[in-house]
């Protein structure tokens, strides 16, 4: 294989993985903007999306498209239940308490998934009927990658419309910008927190479903995805959705190029190295402010 086609091959892989990291990071952002906390159960939403979809389509023989929406619905509901059950009842909790609650939720979901699905690794059939890779010279593009990019783009567009053109979306942004003012104009801030959990669970589930055909899924997959998604969110600038997408592709590409040209044993370390460097050099991330907002608080 020539160097160029090798490079192209790694780029294809990197873009697909990067899209997923970007979506996980989006999930982090939505909750971070609404509440100021990092939801460490974000990776579990991704895992659950994949797992529920597997059970529905291969176990219960639900058609793909229907299964997709039901799985997203179920995981959204789980996200909402976590907020109502564990976050909502607390009166004036500290950010640290909330983050620890999300750790507990993550462990609970992971344990639950292990009970239900066991420790095996599952897969899903690819979305297109033709699984033949599209070849570019010696490199080949898996059709699922196109699905991943397409569905990611579609989710981004839906999110952008929601946040910019609907009153509820604007209210969520208002909450992120200024909670006090939001409650003074009549926005129910606690309801927006619920909505943010539901929304980021949904986005996580979508990511989990579209990645399963290429990356497989097991009960333990969420943690690593959450770590990499978190690194992505930080690189993009916590809270910035455009940043998340750009950073997703950067980390995805670095990971796949690093694994290809250096050694695949460093694959998982790359995202963490990036995280460390961002924190050392530019803690605000690519699109983030340089901590100015934090000082204001």
């Amino acid at each position, binding site marked *: 294989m020539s160097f160029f086609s090798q490079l192209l091959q790694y780029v294809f892989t990197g873009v697909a993985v990067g899209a997923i990291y970007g979506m996980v990071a989006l999930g982090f952002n939505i909750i971070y903007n609404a509440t100021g906390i990092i939801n460490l159960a974000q990776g579990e939403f991704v895992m659950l999306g994949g797992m529920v979809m597997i059970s529905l389509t291969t176990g219960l023989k639900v058609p793909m498209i229907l299964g997709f929406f039901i799985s997203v619905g179920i995981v959204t509901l789980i996200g909402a239940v976590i907020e109502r059950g564990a976050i909502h009842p607390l009166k004036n909790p500290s950010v640290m308490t909330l983050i620890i609650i999300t750790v507990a939720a993550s462990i609970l979901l992971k344990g639950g998934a292990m009970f239900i699905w066991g420790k095996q690794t599952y897969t899903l059939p690819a979305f297109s009927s033709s699984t033949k890779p599209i070849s570019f010279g010696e490199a080949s593009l898996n059709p699922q990658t196109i699905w991943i990019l397409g569905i990611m783009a579609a989710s981004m567009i839906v999110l952008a419309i929601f946040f910019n053109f609907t*009153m509820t979306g604007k209210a969520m*942004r208002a909450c992120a910008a200024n909670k006090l003012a939001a409650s003074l*104009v009549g926005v*129910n801030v606690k309801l927006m927190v619920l909505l943010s959990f539901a929304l980021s669970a949904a986005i996580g589930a979508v990511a989990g479903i579209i990645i399963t055909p290429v990356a497989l899924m097991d009960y333990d997959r969420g943690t690593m995805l959450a770590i990499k998604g978190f690194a992505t969110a930080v690189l993009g600038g916590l809270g910035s959705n455009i940043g998340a997408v750009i950073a997703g592709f950067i980390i995805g590409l670095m990971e796949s190029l690093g694994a290809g040209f250096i050694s695949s044993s460093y694959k998982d370390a790359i995202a963490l190295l990036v995280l460390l460097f961002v924190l050392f050099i530019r803690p605000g991330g690519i699109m983030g402010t340089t901590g100015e907002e934090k000082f204001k608080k």
Partner: protein
Amino acid sequence: MLKIRNLRSFYGNLQALKGISLHIEAGEIVALIGANGAGKSTLLNSISGVISSKRGQILLDGKDITYFPPQRIVKEGISLVPEGRQLFSPLSVMDNLLLGAYQRFSIKKKTQIERDLERVFQIFPILKERRKQVAGTLSGGEQQMLAIARGLMSKPKILLLDEPSMGLAPKIVQDIFRIILRLRDEGTTIFLVEQNAQKALEIADRGYVIETGRIVFEGKSEELLGNREIVRAYLGRGYRKVWE
């Protein structure tokens, strides 16, 4: 219209308001003046539901609204323009205004909200020019106007204004106070909290003076402006006379 009886508010163990009673009648401008930390903002935050640990009674047209959450208070017709403006800075001027009407937003009321927007733009023509601009990029005076305009979008019976003149140039303060008078003349009752006591009492019908969580004086604006002790303590004028 608004009646407050023996209101006590707490920050944890600290009692910030020690039994406030006051009343505001429809069509009035009532000023609340006092030094830093006297409890002015605490009172406004207690009325608008931001501070929930409180005892006493707040009645709006006879209805007990003491323990309502902020979003209910807005619905009942009390709108607070908070200290320091508190805009949604990353959002556009237009979005800020629309969010002001959030609690009554529905497709059916769209034309009504558009009418209210027109009215607000009439009072603040500069906001119409800037409606697509991001709120955080406005000048201080424009931001204060936007904060007031956003407060008006909920169609309040009473508008609570917390230090609207803070940090603004004298000329702009003049504009803001002229607008406050105009709003009263168009039928909005106003409760004005100010450190700029002179200016506030000049436009107000009545005033209250608050000191360490208690109302220490109340009366018609002219009375307060004529009261030696108030003049000495809050207006700075005539300071020397007392020294003699």
